[in-house]
């Protein structure tokens, strides 16, 4: 049977995990790395690179690379104009429609970019299962996590991304809740938990109770635009003010400040270091202490506490009522963040599980629950924001209130305003504000075919249904005549069914180029391995002696030439040439490798007794 996985589709990094014999595990690549950077880069020939390779290309061709696409999921151009200014790729799209990301002369929607990342994770998992010797290694179903505070459009965009990647999305679940599932496995079986999740781009707080294996979310809150990215930008501004470098330096600065930020979680002071580049001939080094860093980011950390208090309030709890606090997301490695959380709840937060991996682990647990029918655990989540419709005077009428356990349903009755009116506009909204214009517009539709009647007589019913993914569907009908209207809800900031279909067809057309990209990466990885091994041999202190005694004349030169030639073609996109030169270097070093191996074996054998052999 094909496999199901749990996927943490993050702003900065993504991961995939699965459950083996009841225990969740993240899937790593051959070098033991679990994180796939959520970066997509377009090669010169239109090939798509994802992950580490794309991250590397971000430095050399920033204008052909996209990162942080999650920030744009399910959003409109008007929402993102400000933050788009700081990014190397173009952000466009029609007013009131889906954001378009312009990169390398092509246009993508955020779900398409995310789909590339998901495809990479799917591929990684399939490779893993293949290596485990499984006959059916296909991965076709997944649970994907989203920030708890994602609205309907953002959730739908995530589900679309899954479909575009060839995955049946079993369930969309909230990141903090997923984390609690991962923790719940071997932790206490009852109590009140606060999950504080500060990731690359988003902040979430969820308050849960756990009892008899039922994980019930009481309330959730957050900020979909607050995370490690914002900390990076504060540091970047600090540096960019000092070097006033050109735009080409931005990615180098970004890389340098991220390194410094990571260092400062371990040490009291570090250097932000940028290597010399044409635009910065002398390079750049700047000392930054933890105290300075903490002063800089304190307002951002403080901003997380507002949603925390609101969530506690909504759950009817005080900070002291929390039995356990759990930290999730890479940004919770920052000592100041840990300190603030500890101060607020008056207890040391849990950090036993890797904060980068815990969400994917929980998603894998949920995937396992869905397909196995295991009933020991059950997750009851809530909808983060109220849902309603616009009524007379532009006022929001709430049909399902925030923090309602999902699935949830609700209905609202209304009527016509003028005689013989045969159609009414329905405007679906999400948010807490009183006025429709302050809420998120999710969709607009027209309920037609109302029989002509005096104003106020028709009984129009709008029904909302939120499914277990937190995604809304809407139905409307006229009750007096029993006439039911099938309505197509066109999402304001989402893709239509037709658009998703078209993108799926296009992705099949590009599949060949994508396979090509992967083969190229594999060729490069192989070449890199051979280069590293060769360079290591060439650094051997015994090289001179070996060369003199055991190598043929000119053999060492031939190796050096082959090495130089391979290094030269590494950046090329012609896979065949890389293969050829790798093969040539392999061939040239074959004899040297044998000689060195023999010496090692001989050395190993000489200090030992015959009986040991």
């Amino acid at each position, binding site marked *: 049977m094909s496999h199901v996985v749990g996927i943490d589709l993050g702003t900065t990094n993504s991961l995939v995990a699965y459950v083996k014999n009841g225990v969740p595990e993240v899937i790593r690549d051959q070098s033991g790395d679990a994180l796939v950077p959520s970066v997509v880069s377009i090669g010169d020939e239109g090939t798509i690179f994802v992950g580490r390779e794309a991250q590397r290309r971000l430095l050399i061709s920033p204008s052909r690379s996209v990162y942080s696409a999650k920030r744009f999921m399910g959003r409109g151009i008007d929402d993102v104009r400000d933050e788009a200014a700081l990014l190397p790729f173009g952000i466009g799209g029609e007013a009131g429609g889906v954001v378009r990301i312009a990169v390398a002369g092509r246009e993508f929607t955020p779900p398409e970019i995310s789909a590339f990342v998901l495809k990479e994770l799917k591929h990684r998992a399939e490779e893993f299962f293949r290596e485990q010797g499984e006959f059916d290694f296909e991965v076709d179903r997944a649970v994907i996590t989203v920030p708890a505070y994602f609205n309907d459009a953002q959730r739908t965009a995530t589900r679309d991304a899954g479909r575009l990647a060839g995955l049946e999305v079993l369930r969309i679940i909230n990141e903090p809740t997923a984390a609690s599932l991962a923790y719940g496995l071997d932790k206490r079986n009852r109590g009140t938990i606060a999950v504080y999740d500060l990731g690359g781009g988003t902040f979430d707080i969820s308050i849960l109770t756990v009892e008899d294996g039922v994980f019930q979310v009481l309330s959730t809150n957050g900020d979909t635009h607050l995370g490690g990215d914002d900390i990076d930008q504060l540091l970047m501004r600090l540096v960019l003010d000092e070097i006033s470098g050109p735009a080409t330096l931005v990615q180098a600065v970004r890389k340098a400040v991220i390194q410094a930020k990571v260092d400062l979680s371990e040490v009291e002071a570090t250097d932000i270091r940028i290597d010399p580049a044409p635009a910065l001939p002398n390079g750049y080094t700047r000392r930054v202490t933890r105290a300075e860093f903490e002063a800089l980011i304190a307002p951002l950390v403080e901003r997380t506490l507002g949603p925390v208090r609101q969530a506690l309030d909504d759950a009817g709890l005080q900070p002291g009522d929390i039995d356990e606090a759990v930290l999730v997301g890479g940004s919770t490695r920052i000592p100041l963040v840990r300190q603030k959380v500890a101060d607020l709840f008056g207890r040391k937060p849990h950090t036993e599980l890797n904060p980068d991996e815990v969400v994917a682990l929980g998603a894998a647990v949920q995937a396992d629950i869905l397909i196995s*029918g295991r009933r020991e655990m059950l997750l009851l989540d809530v909808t983060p924001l109220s849902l309603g419709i616009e009524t007379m005077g532009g006022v929001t009428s709430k049909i399902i209130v925030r923090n309602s356990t999902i699935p949830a349903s609700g209905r609202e009755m209304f009527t016509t305003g003028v005689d013989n009116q045969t159609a009414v506009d329905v405007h679906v909204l999400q948010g807490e504000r009183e006025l429709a214009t302050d809420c998120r517009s999710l969709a607009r539709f027209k309920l037609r075919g109302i029989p002509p009647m005096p104003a106020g007589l028709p009984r129009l019913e709008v029904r909302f249904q939120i499914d277990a993914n937190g995604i809304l569907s809407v139905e409307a009908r006229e009750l007096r005549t029993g006439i039911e209207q099938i309505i197509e809800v066109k999402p304001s900031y989402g893709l239509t069914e037709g658009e998703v279909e078209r993108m799926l067809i296009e992705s099949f057309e590009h599949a060949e180029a994508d396979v090509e990209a992967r083969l190229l990466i594999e060729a490069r990885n192989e070449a890199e391995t051979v280069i590293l091994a060769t360079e290591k041999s060439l650094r051997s202190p015994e090289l001179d002696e070996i060369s003199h005694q055991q190598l043929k004349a000119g053999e060492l030169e031939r190796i050096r030439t082959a090495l130089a030639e391979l290094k030269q073609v590494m950046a090329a996109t012609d896979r065949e040439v890389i293969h050829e030169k790798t093969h040539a270097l392999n061939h040239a070093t074959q004899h040297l490798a044998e000689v060195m191996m023999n010496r090692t074996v001989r050395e190993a054998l000489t200090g030992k007794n015959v009986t040991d052999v």
Partner: protein
Amino acid sequence: MTDPIPVRAEAALECRTCGAGAPVDEHFCPNCSRLLALGRHGDYFSFLGLPRKLTIAAAELEQKFRELSRKFHPDYYYNASPAERLASLERSSYLNDAYRTLRNPVSRIEHLLAIEGLPSAKSEEGTAKVPPDLLEEVFALNEELDEIREQRESGADAGALSVRLDGARKPIERKRDQHERQLQDLAARWDSQEQASAQDKRATLEALRERLLERNYINNLLATIDREAASLSAANLS
């Protein structure tokens, strides 16, 4: 929150899987044991297997909720037939609404009134006349609020006005507390009236409804005071 699905409970449900009939309060088909479609259920108490009483132990409600969640949740019907998947979605949604409604003592009373056939206390919200019991307080409060507003607009010391506003809030809060107690007493009376005549029960329900209307009115008054307090603190800051 919206009104519950109207009370028009059918005498029996038809199982979408095997076609057999089932009593309306059953969750699973007695014949084929599949999850039943919800139908037109209207009573949150009977759905949760609770007596139609206003005193509910929180722990008991939670336990019923968890128990039924484990029976209905869509997580456990992922591979089930479309009919059962739909039934799972409907029953879970309904269960969540029922739990939310019955957990809160006030929405619990509102639901009881609805299933006992009384008009909603919420529909008259805002349009209601001043309840006779509150006439005196409302009159005094409105006068005081007018004066505070007038003085604020002419730039009087906002701090002093805040103190005055707090003074005006006290009698209203006392009224609210009094009403809470009356509601509790009436709820206890309803719970003890199982064997009482239909007429006596009806009288209790009517009284509960009156108290709810007054309560809504009091809450609106408190909201008005809060708005004025916000204006005052804004004036104080500027």
